[in-house]
């Protein structure tokens, strides 16, 4: 744990993005999580993704619930909008915000307790409604803030730090999101930023609800032998189906790929997802196939990671509701209120002579 703020001295050759910002400009306050927490790596991945995408920090709203994971929005994007909601209620507050102002980029940050236990109903509805958001689950399988009890995502048979074996069935948030209609579903590992950063970038540029379930080891309570969410276990059982590169319209493509090894997916905003296949039979546009594959591998004790499913022609909640292009919070009285004459006319039409 570090109490001192990072010094502001920069190396002279510090890279800047097209907005002139450095990576440091996307950071937040100094983290108060345990040293070595996977969540801090996820924060660093968000910083890198926003830096790479040239996102203006004030165009992002980050919302979270309660828990170790939900503390993390304080540690990145210090210049963005933030809302720390009540436990498990991040999705509904975010839905409201997204409806009121469709112009912001919404990042929901939650954990396995916040989303799979107390907030599972909220999670389900945000997914099925297609709220235009990136839903980041920092999934460590334990309740870290209350000293390491199993959470709802802990695998059956996995052992707690004190040797207790979990007897309950785990909730797989990625599988649930697929079933509920999320249009961008991925799983990754906090210890593999090369995989995680592009997945976050792709999700931030996705229209519709995007879920990334990030296995994030709890160094204090869930990083021992017998845990299925430890650094070692995840590294040994990681079954990555593909590797993603997010190509923006401005980027030049220099890499070449052997035929058949690459899948190009164009998103609504022109960004291109280059999926380098690792499992050549895996089809990320097949929702049912993806659901089956997750279940099959889970039985074998494997953790499937990568971009599991993407629907490039997805639509979001605003499209479903057919709202106006103008953000609702900018609509003025003259647009919203038809005036007393219209009211009189309406009343008159309802009166039976």
């Amino acid at each position, binding site marked *: *744990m*570090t*109490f*001192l703020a*990072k*010094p*502001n*001295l*920069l*190396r*002279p*050759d*510090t*890279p800047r993005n097209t907005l002139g910002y450095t*990576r*440091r400009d996307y950071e937040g306050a100094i983290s108060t999580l*345990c*040293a*070595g*927490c*996977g969540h*801090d*790596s996820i*924060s*660093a991945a968000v910083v890198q993704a926003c830096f790479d995408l040239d996102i203006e920090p004030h165009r992002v709203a980050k919302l979270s619930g309660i828990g170790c994971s939900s503390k993390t929005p304080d540690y990145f994007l210090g210049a963005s909008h933030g809302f720390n909601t009540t436990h498990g209620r991040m999705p509904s507050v975010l839905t409201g915000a997204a409806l009121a102002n469709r112009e912001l980029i919404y990042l929901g940050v939650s954990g396995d307790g916040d989303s799979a236990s107390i907030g599972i109903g909220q999670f389900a509805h945000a997914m099925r409604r297609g709220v235009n958001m990136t839903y980041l689950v920092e999934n460590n399988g334990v309740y870290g803030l209350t000293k390491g009890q199993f959470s709802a995502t802990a695998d059956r048979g996995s052992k707690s730090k004190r040797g207790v074996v979990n007897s309950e069935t785990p909730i797989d948030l990625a599988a649930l999101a697929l079933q509920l209609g999320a249009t961008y579903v991925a799983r990754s590992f*906090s*210890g593999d*930023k090369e995989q995680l950063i592009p997945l976050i970038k792709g999700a931030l540029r996705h229209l519709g609800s995007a879920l990334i379930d990030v296995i994030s*080891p709890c*160094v204090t309570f869930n*990083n021992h032998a017998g845990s299925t969410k430890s*650094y*070692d276990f995840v*590294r040994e059982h990681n079954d990555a189906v593909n590797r993603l590169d997010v190509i923006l319209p401005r980027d030049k493509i220099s890499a070449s790929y052997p035929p058949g090894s690459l899948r190009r997916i164009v998103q609504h905003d022109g960004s291109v997802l280059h999926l380098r296949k690792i499992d050549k039979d895996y089809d990320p546009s097949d929702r049912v196939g993806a659901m089956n594959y997750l279940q099959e591998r889970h039985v074998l004790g494997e953790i499937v990671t990568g971009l599991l499913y993407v629907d490039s022609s997805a639509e979001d909640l605003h499209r479903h509701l057919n709202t106006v292009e103008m953000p609702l919070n900018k609509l003025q009285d003259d647009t919203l209120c038809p005036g007393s004459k219209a009211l009189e006319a309406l009343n008159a039409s309802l009166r039976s002579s």
Partner: protein
Amino acid sequence: MKPTNIGNPDYFHKVVDCQWACPAHTPVPEYIRLIASGHYSEAYMINWRSNVFPGILGRVCDRPCEPACRRGRVDKEPVAICRLKRVAADLKDDIQERLPVPPLKKNGKRVVCVGAGPASLTVARDLAAIGYEVTILDSGATPGGMMRSQIPKFRLPDSVIDEECDYILNLGVHTRYSHWVTSLRDLLDEGWDAVFVGTGAPRGRDADVPGRREAAAHIHIGIEWLANVAFGHTTSIAPRVIVLGGGNTAMDCCRSARRLGGEDVKVVVRSGFDEMKASPWEKEDAIHESIPIINMHVPKEFVHYNGKLKGVRFEIVRAEYDAKGRRSLVPTGEPDVLMECDEVLVAIGQENSFPWIEKDIGLQFDKWGLPVLETATLQSTLPKVFFGGDAAFGPKNIITAVAHGHEAAISIDLFCRGRSLLDRPPPMVNLVSQKMGIHEWSYDNQVSEEERKKVPVKALEKTLKDIKLELELGFDPFMACAEAERCLNCDIETVFTVKTCIECDACVDICPTECITFTANGEEDDLRGRLKAPANNGEQALYVSDVLKTGRVMVKDENICLHCGMCAERCPTGAWDMQKFFLQTAEAGTEARRT
């Protein structure tokens, strides 16, 4: 790349850029921390052991440490290392009790040092402290050599020289002042066990242009004139003065001239401003005293009327570089310039001169008139005779002379004990963890973001009237503390243990300057290009670990590490630790470790 061998003392020594750059390898960060905590006497003694003249060097050192300072690579300016040294000297208590006590029973060996400058005094100190009987011979009436005769008093008061020479002479060193050595043969016949020659580079180069001889009464050799000023033989100068030359001696000449009645003093230099040999801060000091520096002017003639100097005629040139980057000064074709003046000071370089060494004595000189020496041992072709300071390899600076003194003392000691001069004792090295608690370190790891402090000076109206009045006031304790806090503590090293690393990336994420990367190993050039931030400074090492569990290696670019310890604080398993590296070079009398 192979895993870095941090067991080699050179590896971490190089990371401490200031100490590595210092010819005497003074443990800079260690004494700076002592200053920050108010332990001035301790800070002084660390300096005294390494560089012998902290009070003198804290005022006039050439400061090779400051351009090397890591802070200069991340901030606008390096730490004011030199002036912090002066703080230790100014604010220390009585240090008499901390000085070494020479053994009552001498070892029976007699060593003579020719010249009482910094090199000889260093030899004398190192050898007297371990029981040698050392005698210093000098033509002057006081010790100090060029520190006393050439550096103006407004930069370095006599009291400071007296104090620091006395610390050495009080170790029982014999002195013979006003003593000219006219023959090395005679000296050797006196039966000394070893002779150390520290006679400096005493001859000032002359400007051999027309009119020099005729107008000689108004033209002075810079270092001779400075000596005359230093000893009070010269107390005034005519109002209009031209100083020829662009080195530190020229800066001392012009600033002295300003104080002795020179109203219109200018420095005229052949080269461009940036190529001048003078240190940037000495040029700034001259400019501060409203002395113009005129560049790209080559003196052609001293213009005189029957021996009465009228001025100097200059040709205007420009620099041209050939394919190999060698410079030549080419006339621009503009008409020559006559600058009127009453007196000229010639400060265009110094030369060695050994008229007292017989040519047939077996001591060889090279074609530049310098003695042929064994570089590491400073031994001449006459085994008994050793050289150091400017007399060894030509004019350098005080701190180099001190470093030579230490090495020569080691050589003389080995020589007198009949040991091989190449069997040199190793430095004393220590590496120890600074961890005090979960996020507590025994050093202040918060990186200061303050700017470099300027040393306060006395008002020019006063100091330009009195050549003996010291211009700089030195830092007060508060400024000293703030400046000391700017030190990045580069001697607190990041030490990595492969065994305990779980590759959680916490160190990578927290590092404020992106020094740390976990990646597949490769050749150095390839690795340098694909780190989290490219490692473009090839002079700074990469710290490469052994292979980790995932098959990757940890690579740390030492270049811009702030030594803030955040990697170690964030490390859940203690794979990173902050350990203080302390290195003191060997002193004469240290035994080489037998392994």
